């Protein structure tokens, strides 16, 4: 049986998918996950999930956002200065980064 492993590097971080393991049951899966995915890099926590419990939907199945031009949804579309408030400027910058990488990943 295959299990997907999500690793959290440090407290407060997101759990990110880092790989999988083979194991006959949950207990063995957590053990193998520790050995295979929590040994070298600093690890705070692992989530171990049966692979068949993960449901996937991909770009062939559906039309995700991000590929169509929806400029009105982006802070960058509005020609007013965001620098007056740090948190607004930060948000705009994060959005600009995502906008630029659109289609790259």
């Amino acid at each position, binding site marked *: 049986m295959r299990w997907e492993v999500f690793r959290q590097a440090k*407290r*407060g*971080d*997101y759990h990110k998918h880092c790989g999988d393991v083979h194991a006959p049951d949950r207990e063995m899966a957590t053990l193998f996950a520790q050995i295979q995915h929590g040994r070298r890099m600093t690890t705070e*926590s692992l989530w171990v999930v049966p692979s068949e419990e993960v*449901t996937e939907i991909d770009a062939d199945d559906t039309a995700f956002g991000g590929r169509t031009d*929806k400029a*009105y*949804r*982006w*802070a960058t*579309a*509005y*020609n*007013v200065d*965001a620098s*007056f*408030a*740090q*948190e*607004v*400027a*930060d*948000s*705009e910058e*994060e*959005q600009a980064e995502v906008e630029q990488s659109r289609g790259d990943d």
Partner: protein
Amino acid sequence: MDIETVKARAGPREFGRADDMPEEYREAATRMLQFHANSEIMGAYLEKPFIRQSPSVDRKLAFSAKVQDEIGHGQLLYRAAEALGVKTREEMLDELARGDGKFLNCFHYEMTDWAETPMIAFFVDGAAMKRQATLKQSSWTPYAHAMDKICFEEGFHVKHGEDIMRELATGSRKEQRLLQEAFDEWWPRILQFFGPTDDRSTHHDFAADVGLKTMTNDELRNQFLNAYVPKARKYGLEIPDEPRIRTDEDGEYYEVVEADLDWDEFFAIAKNEYPEGLDQIDGRATAREAVAWVRDSLTEADAGGPGATASAGGD
């Protein structure tokens, strides 16, 4: 974990679902998150009519995107609240419909004219974003994670709100007049957004001690005034003489004269006893009831087993 350990360890994103948190922490975090989630939902209902009332297709698209965002933020926050194990999402939504759920003062007022929209979309969202940016450092990790996504999206909301204000402020004399009237009406409410000064805030000390929040209402109000008063002036808005706001010798805003604000109204709102606010609560409860059949049909499909249903809504 006992409360002293929580206080000793309190820091940004320190606690999560795997930690055994004491009841006092879970209740305080639930109170904050539920208030925040309710506010997202009630704010969305306040702005929803302006999808229809938008003067252009661009504004219509932006308002519908924004309302969709806010409902998603509400859902995100209910999940972060639910993870504390105190209340389920359904309980919180029921409380909101019954008039027991609390939410931001500004969303208890009616908004009827287009010229009012920047009051919410720029000033109130801007004030909310000030607070939300600090909550990225909350000790309850699901709260901080929700803030990552919410703050990412909010930049659009605030800039869109400013763009509407710019358009009105540089428009016809009538538009300028309507904008000023809206500002006169909303300004005291916006000043009350951060609540009364800290010595009268009952919940702050504990929430700060356990790292749920990192900044006082006074600090946030001050930062907000320093950023947003110059913006209002830039667009030719006159700041009303009352309520008075005082500056120190460097021109930094440091105090709102509290006696100039209507605290009876504020506390009536805080108890969900303000007539306009009750209309907002009832309006939402009615809308929720009207689409109960959608939820019911999803639940019925759920009973059909895994894969029998599409998931509802999006963030």
